[in-house]
């Protein structure tokens, strides 16, 4: 038997997503698209010159999983440094493909562990990871810019 995918936290974030808006004055933004299902979102971040994510937000349309994941991500990112955000991206990625067992391995995922059962739904992994890949893309772009 697979773990229940639609846990209350996920349903609740789907119903009332947090930071669901265009972020005026964003320093970093990227667009994410899942051609398989048509999910489409923008991730915005306001990052201070010393590399702290002051605020994160998202806009777009998608399924409950992608919306809840994006919503919870924006909450988790607030106050994190870029390095911390990259580490979290890494851990979340491992979590959704079933390579990180939050009960057994140390991690910084906290509430995000609500997605720990999603690896049992392979077709839905991309729904959960879309916003994270988009966020990661937005950060990567900075790196390119900052190396110039």
């Amino acid at each position, binding site marked *: *038997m*697979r773990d229940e*995918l*639609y846990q*209350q936290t996920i*349903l609740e974030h*789907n119903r009332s997503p947090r930071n669901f808006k265009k972020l005026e004055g964003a320093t970093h933004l990227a667009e994410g698209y899942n051609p*398989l*299902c*048509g*999910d*489409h979102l923008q991730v915005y971040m306001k990052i201070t010159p010393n590399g702290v994510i002051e605020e994160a937000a998202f806009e777009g*349309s*998608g*399924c*409950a*999983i992608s919306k809840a994941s994006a919503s919870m991500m924006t909450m988790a990112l607030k106050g994190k440094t870029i390095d911390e955000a990259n580490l979290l991206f890494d851990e979340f990625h491992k979590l959704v493909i079933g390579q990180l067992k939050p009960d057994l391995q140390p991690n910084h995922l906290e509430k995000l562990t609500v997605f720990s059962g999603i690896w049992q*739904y392979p*077709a*839905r992994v991309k*729904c959960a990871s879309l916003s994270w890949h988009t966020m990661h893309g937005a950060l990567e772009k900075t790196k390119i810019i900052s190396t110039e």
Partner: protein
Amino acid sequence: MSAFDVHRYRSEFPNLKINVHGKPLVYLDNAATTLKPRCVIDAVNAYYVTGVSNVHRGVHFLSEQATAAFEFSRQVVRQFLHARRVEEIIFTKGATESLNLIAQSYGRHFLKKGDEIIISHMEHHSNIVPWQMLCQQTGSVLKVIPINDKGEIIFEEYLKLLSDRTKLVSLVWVSNSLGTVNPVKALIDEAHKRGAVVVIDAAQAVTHLPINVQELDCDFLVFSGHKVLGPTGVGVLFGKEKYLEAMPPYQGGGDMIKSVTFAGTTYNDLPYKFEAGTPPIAEVIGLRSALEFLQSVSWENVKEHKKELLEYGTKILLAIDGVRIIGTAKEKTSIISFVVDGIHPHDLGTLVDQEGVAIRTGHHCTQPVMQYFGIPATARASLALYNTKEELDILAQAVKKAQAVFQH
């Protein structure tokens, strides 16, 4: 449904007997691919167990036997499509390859800058992208027939698009995402009045309607084996002999040649000119069994059965609060696309899967259709001859259960 004993046919499909998440499988994703009857599985198996050989090559027993079986399949396909000649039947790996073959062989050879190609707004990506590629290569122009809110081709707009510049018209017979049955005969006749060549995408039509390419008078027609109870990896291209003769080969290789020297190559006759390399032999042999199975069932009875399923499914889904059907054409086959308020189709797909119900969710490779209706995706129940009203009840219950999850 008296004339049609659905349970007799169900017993021919072993895949129907499985459980999914502890519940009996309810397979409603037939527009993606159909389940296979035992005779198809047996035919493919028999080839691999006692009949393996390449075709058109050896003089040994197995090779002659495989070649005979392979070529007999071509006869069965010819008869199934009511084509005039067996040379007009080309085996490909699927409808997609068939369309690409027409675009790259016929299209690149005969279309030039400024020529126009007409498709409709409800085409599958496989009947859009090959023509876009051709337009890039030749400078031809792609024109699109608009559809209305019911998901029907607007015939008057089609007539306006047709002109002396129209060189090719490629249209879907039955829409995979809307279920619409297009009036292909009338569409073909109008194109012919302008001297255009007509391609019919029969990928969905093939399991729903009898096909007579001579009566239709289409110039090309394509379908895939796996959507008509047959194996994956095999498709058919029907083409009128005069066009196939005039077309250059699509791919080069073995089997499509008469003689090869470094000074030059003489191509083989039809149909082999278009069948380079070892073909999907087991699949072609399996396709024959699929078509024979279908022919053993009366079209009229199947049509009646599917009509009842379509009407029943539409009725019970619409009885659920918040359900909207996408695609309400007057002429429609047993494909029901729908959306549920407040639940994304992907969530719905996962939740009904928990109940053992297989539906397709997504854009169904028809993104322009989704754009027209202003939705990202739909849920789609597509029904085959082995489906039952009881299965539609299970679907409806599963949809209600999904709503309950989302209303918590």
